[in-house]
């Protein structure tokens, strides 16, 4: 009986610690173990997903739309594309720098300008990319604040 109580209590303490760490804004704390970007049981922290959703609603939705499916000829979809599910640094740089010029996604061209969003904090960028990579049918590893910080530091957009 005491064994069970001890295990249960330790587990509850671990969860509490997780919540405290998330609330403090430290890196998205992944509850399951495992490394690598794909194929492991990684679940982004709920708080991060909620924050990321707010950023998406306020900053991204107007162009990428409610279902992240984009707009024909103008704004590319964010659903299951290599841009979104692939390497994190180029994706972070798109959020920081925006995009100009036509981009081809899944065989279609898109022409509208994407404004830079370097005014978002590292946490906001980590959260919204984690949210997009794990919503709308997407499934991919979370983007961390550390990764955003590193990408921002190495980011040298042309003409700025």
């Amino acid at each position, binding site marked *: 009986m005491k064994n069970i109580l001890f295990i249960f209590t330790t587990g509850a303490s671990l*969860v509490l610690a997780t919540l405290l760490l998330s609330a403090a804004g430290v890196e998205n704390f992944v509850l399951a173990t495992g490394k690598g970007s794909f194929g492991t049981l990684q679940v982004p922290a709920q708080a991060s997903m*909620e924050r990321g959703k*707010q950023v998406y609603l306020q900053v991204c*939705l107007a162009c990428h739309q409610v279902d992240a499916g984009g707009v*024909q000829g103008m704004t590319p979809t964010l659903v299951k594309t290599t841009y979104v599910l692939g390497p994190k640094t180029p994706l972070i740089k798109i959020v920081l720098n925006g995009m100009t010029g036509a981009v081809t996604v899944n065989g279609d061209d898109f*022409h*509208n300008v994407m404004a830079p969003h370097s005014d978002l904090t590292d946490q906001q960028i980590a959260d919204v990319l984690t949210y997009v990579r794990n919503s709308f049918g997407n499934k991919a590893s979370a983007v961390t604040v550390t990764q955003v910080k590193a990408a921002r530091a190495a980011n040298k957009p042309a003409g700025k």
Partner: protein
Amino acid sequence: MQHSIHQPKRTSWKLFYLLMGLSLTGLIACGAGGGNGNKTDSASTAAATADTSWALKPTDSATMISDSLKLPAGFAATTLVENLGRTRHIAVAPNGAVFVKLSKLQDGKGIYRLMDTNGDGKADKSFGFCNYTGTGMAIRDGYLYASSDTCVYRYKLDKDFNVVDPNHPEKIVTGLLARGEHEPKAITLDYSGNLYVNIGAYSNSCQLQDRTKGSPGQRPCPILDSAGGIWQFKADVPNQTYGDDHHYATGLRNVVGFDWNQQTNSLFVMQHGRDQLHDLFPDIWDTKQSAELPAECMYELHKGSDCGYPYIFYDQFQHKKILAPEYGGDGKKTAGDSAQDPVMAFPGHLAPDGLLFYTGNQFPGRYKNGAFIAFHGSWNRAPEPQEGFFVVFAPFENGKPTGKWEIFANNFSGGDAQTASGRADHRPCGLAQGPDGSIYVTDDSKGFVWKISYKQ
């Protein structure tokens, strides 16, 4: 398993139970507080709070059937062709041959000539040619005119309106700017040997940094000298390009639907109004206001016309030209005293891609000289529901509206949910009138071409 920690007295277990209780309480509190982050309220539709005569009427969802247009009594539609791809603008020859321009090559071709030889409403002969994509399509004086995003070409037609030399068009206009945004070069012609070309502004509102919050508008807007207006050329002179005597009208953000009105002998255009009032200036416009504003405006142009873009937009609730926020506007300040007022103003972001003044005798008399407008459908109303994806009719006489506009052909989207989400089955684009007085509508989503006729 054995306890590996030192087992204290009974009071330490009470501490553990207390910690457990606190954890569970914390879990429950976070779960409740996290909740639904959706901050947009769930009310309503596109209906405006002010002057509702300009707001969209709710659609009649009871009769919406997928793949079937909803038309007024006495009208019926057939599909001349289906799944031709990105069919944009359309022209119909006096013998009924239909030409459509594609913005994406279909089987390697950018123009299709379609013919219904047995009168069953469906094309049974088709001929594809042209290796460039684009939007513009028009027929005048024995020639087919077509545009890419930088040039206008023409093809001689024989007496049966077959293209004489499809692989060697004559280049009439060259060197037009195409800088990402608003690239399609819609065209139309008058009856005096002139060709009109839209050159859309490669910008939303001529900010220094396009679509970027906090970036100021540029005054003077440097785009206007070579885009953001209508250029006029001779219909029969090769290799024309920019030049002072070709600049016909300015201050127009992007025109896709336009038509020569034969009653007034003047050019009428439909402007795609600017986007993102709320995204860029959330302190002035909320999401609902931004979904309706600014109006999509119809203008009547003459040489030298200035419609005020980017410095003003038309607010159809205040009935005024409002100073654009990028230039110091606050939603109330007016400006553009020397810019034109619109002939008609429609709800925001509907994307007017086709305009046709009806001159036929097949439809009932009230339609004669009136305007059909194809609304491609919105994207910039999000997070509010999207709107459009229909053809409207407005009665006109001598270039002046004589009544309110009404939805004429509906259900291109396939239903209310498809309209609201913007994920429409079909998106109306081009309009043309046939020799028998039927009208044709293209869809640039899947490439359906409808022929709409009136049966007595």
